[in-house]
């Protein structure tokens, strides 16, 4: 069978001054009709560059293909004119992207965005075009296509927007679909349905799919074959089952071994330890008042009762919009709760005013999701780390001393305190954020999706660090995540949140092995690659 896409010895040059010479080095693989090839790797491995090279969308002047060929059904795309490439986009090859929130034009109706593809590439009467749009919208299982055709992207959910993207990409039935992390930004249940959709459509139309992902769970769900990339090279290539169960290359073994297991880890827990933090009936309501219209209210958090003991990790798990971050923000008093109580060591702090709250602020610290945006880019990291402690009266030299010892604790060189955040990698920045939180000598540490933005191998290290820190300082850790695998490994107890309420709360072991609530069950069912126990092949 002739492949739809054949990449042969492709090399792409990086601009001068980059950390390596080539973004891609001698990359070769084939995608056959009706096949899903997963391109797996961590950030910077060159997997997106591969996709963009095929589409001819590499940023001009920065990334230049220097050797090899890309054959789309025997036509070398590297030699094609700009005009020919434009003609081929969406007709021969299509691409969908990671962020459905930003990948659609916000000021254009969804129907018009699909229509634009038709108008650009084929001649059809307006009526037939509308028919065709409605048909493809139905095929990607969008509800009520006739109404959705007139909506703007911001009126749709993330999953619906990704379906619009897929409809746009597939309306002209290209032979090749490149999907660049299309489900990474989506909730796990939405992700499951989008993966199902891609698989169904691809099977029905015999489309070849190049599926780019960093998530081995997704690979296990969807891939026929796998190419593993590291630093611009394909280091391992083979049948999906083969690669997942018996990886040959050391890098692949490390990557797969870093995927947290869905089986909860055995954790020792002192159930008699003192309760450091508990909430009772914690609720947060946002309301928007205005003249000439009725008040709108949104219940972000409703009647949440939680309890964390010293040295214990409580996980709050839920999808986006479930209210988990609002709970954390209320507990840290970054947002004022609307009702209910928060007790820190038995002292109610939910209603304290700013001045009275001050001594308690120090005792609850928070680490945020995005290490790229949670450090002030114009201050050296040392200043960011000690700012809190000096604010509470610690002399600067003492604070710096503490910062240095904490840097060692988070396994960073204490001599880099005078550098700026952009000089560090994502994982290093998150370590700096942890050190920053710890300088305050807190009793409660809140980690709000603190490992979600990190590559899987780095994620494993930071998770271990967080757990070590918890043990070392006997901290109560409040761990907020959407990732069940991570929760299974780090949490002693967990609360599952859905639509602003805690629907299930118990020991992690019990929640995973015997979920009671329907929502928890659906969440566990939707987890990609749930049948695989990735760490299993590794020698202990």
């Amino acid at each position, binding site marked *: 069978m002739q492949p739809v896409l054949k990449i042969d010895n492709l090399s792409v040059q990086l601009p001068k001054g980059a950390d390596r010479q080539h973004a891609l080095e001698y990359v070769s693989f084939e995608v056959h009709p009706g096949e899903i090839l997963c391109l797996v790797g961590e950030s910077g491995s060159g997997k997106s560059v591969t996709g963009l090279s095929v589409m001819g*969308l590499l940023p001009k002047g920065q990334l230049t293909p220097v050797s090899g060929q890309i054959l789309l059904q025997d036509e070398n795309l590297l030699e094609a004119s700009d005009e020919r490439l434009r003609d081929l986009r969406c007709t021969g090859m299509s691409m969908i992207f990671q962020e459905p929130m930003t990948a659609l034009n*916000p*000021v254009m109706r969804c129907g018009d965005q699909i229509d634009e593809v038709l108008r650009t590439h084929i001649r059809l009467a307006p009526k037939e075009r509308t028919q065709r749009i409605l048909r493809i919208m139905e095929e990607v299982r969008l509800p009520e296509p006739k109404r959705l055709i007139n909506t703007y992207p911001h009126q749709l959910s993330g999953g619906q927007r990704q379906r619009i993207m897929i409809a746009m990409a597939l309306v002209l039935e290209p032979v090749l679909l490149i999907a660049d992390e299309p489900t990474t930004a989506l909730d796990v249940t939405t992700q499951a349905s989008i993966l199902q959709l891609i698989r169904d459509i691809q099977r029905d139309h015999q489309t070849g799919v190049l599926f780019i992902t960093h998530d081995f769970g997704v690979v296990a769900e969807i891939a026929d074959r796998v190419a593993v990339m590291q630093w611009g090279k394909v280091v391992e290539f083979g049948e999906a089952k083969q690669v997942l169960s018996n990886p040959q290359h050391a890098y692949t073994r490390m990557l797969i071994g870093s995927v947290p297991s869905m089986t909860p880890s055995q954790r020792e827990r002192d159930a008699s330890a003192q309760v450091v933090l508990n909430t009772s009936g914690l609720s947060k309501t946002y309301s928007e008042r205005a003249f000439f*219209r009725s008040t709108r209210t949104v219940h972000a958090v409703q009647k949440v009762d939680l309890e964390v003991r010293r040295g214990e990790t409580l996980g709050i798990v839920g999808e986006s919009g479930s209210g988990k971050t609002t709970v954390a923000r209320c507990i840290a008093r970054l947002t004022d709760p609307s009702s209910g109580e928060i007790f820190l060591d038995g002292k109610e702090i939910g209603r304290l005013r700013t001045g009275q709250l001050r001594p308690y602020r120090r005792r609850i610290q928070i680490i945020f999701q995005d290490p790229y945006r949670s450090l002030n880019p114009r201050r050296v990291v040392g200043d960011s780390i000690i700012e809190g402690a000096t604010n509470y009266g610690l002399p600067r030299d003492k604070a710096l001393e503490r910062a240095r010892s904490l840097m060692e604790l988070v396994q960073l060189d204490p001599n880099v305190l005078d550098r700026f955040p952009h000089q560090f990698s994502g994982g290093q920045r998150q370590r700096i954020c942890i050190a920053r939180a710890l300088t305050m000598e807190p009793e409660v540490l809140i980690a709000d999706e603190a490992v979600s933005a990190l590559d899987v191998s780095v994620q494993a290290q930071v998770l271990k660090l967080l757990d070590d820190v918890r043990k070392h300082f006997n901290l109560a850790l409040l761990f907020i995540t959407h990732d069940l695998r991570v929760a299974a490994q780090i949490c002693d107890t967990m609360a599952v949140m859905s639509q602003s309420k805690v629907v299930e709360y118990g020991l992690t072991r019990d929640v995973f092995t015997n979920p009671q609530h329907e929502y928890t069950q*659906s969440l566990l069912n939707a987890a990609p690659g749930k049948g695989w126990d990735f760490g299993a092949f590794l020698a202990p």
Partner: protein
Amino acid sequence: MEHFKVRRSGTLAKRSQRTMLGFLVRRILATIPVLAMVALFVFFMLRLTPGDPAAILAGDNGEPHQIEAIREALGLNEPILTQLTIWLGNILQGDLGESFFFNKKVTELIAMRVDATLSLAIVTLIITLAVAIPLGVLAAYRHGSWVDRLVMGFSVLGFSVPIFVLGYFLIFIFSVKLNWFPVQGFKSISDGFWPFLHHLILPSLTLSVIYIALIARMTRASVIEVLNEDYIRTAYAKGLSNMVVLMRHALHNAAVPIVTITGIGVALLIGGVVVTESVYNIPGLGRLTVDAVLGRDYPTIQALILVFSCVYVVINLLIDLSYTLLDPRIRY
């Protein structure tokens, strides 16, 4: 288990209509205190500034008793609060008063002059937008190239040259040397379109340079930002040409700041009009303002400033309303 959270478009449209009407009503009500403040401020400022309209009217050889008589006739001897009450009472009846100088109703005076200023403003605006937006988009598309640097260089120049210098320079080149355009004057559109345009081109060009500089800069910055967005990459991935991506996708998304700055520009145009009309001897509101101020013609100054502030308010309202057309995410 996807949560479909699309609102019914029917109710959505209805609700947005209702809130839109509410917004309009609120905004129009809010202009009343603004205009009242302006009126009071202008009234008192004028009376606090040195200079006596009666003395100016009487001329250099005016005798004290003549001046006194003029004061009496103009009502300037009344207590200041009485003057204020009379003036405000007249405004509420739609009467802006009578000019000290021209012996005409101020409303008539403004009606006679508004034609020229409006023509100048509109032609200026057309030239500005026709030049500035393509220039800005081009500079953004060729970001960092010599085209971009050229546009930015021109923009700095446009900001720095004073209007009157540029005006006389253009007159010298195009009217005196080349003899392409008349040196000064204004022809109403009722005298024929070509004479009208022929007289307006130089003044409009003079006035538009600073706005071209401003709006081209804004367009460039705004489009550069939008070009980095994910949906631009999507647009290219659809196989659209550069032109379509720039004009349909990028420019539309960059429109809100461009419209804002254009609106502010139009409001500021009033200041520019004063100088330009003097340079080119155009009988418009700008010249009228200068004459009225020099003659301490209180009723005319007061009326002009009220009219100008009304224009400001209306333009601001229009800008706010245009947002909802440009960006469906903005609702009032």
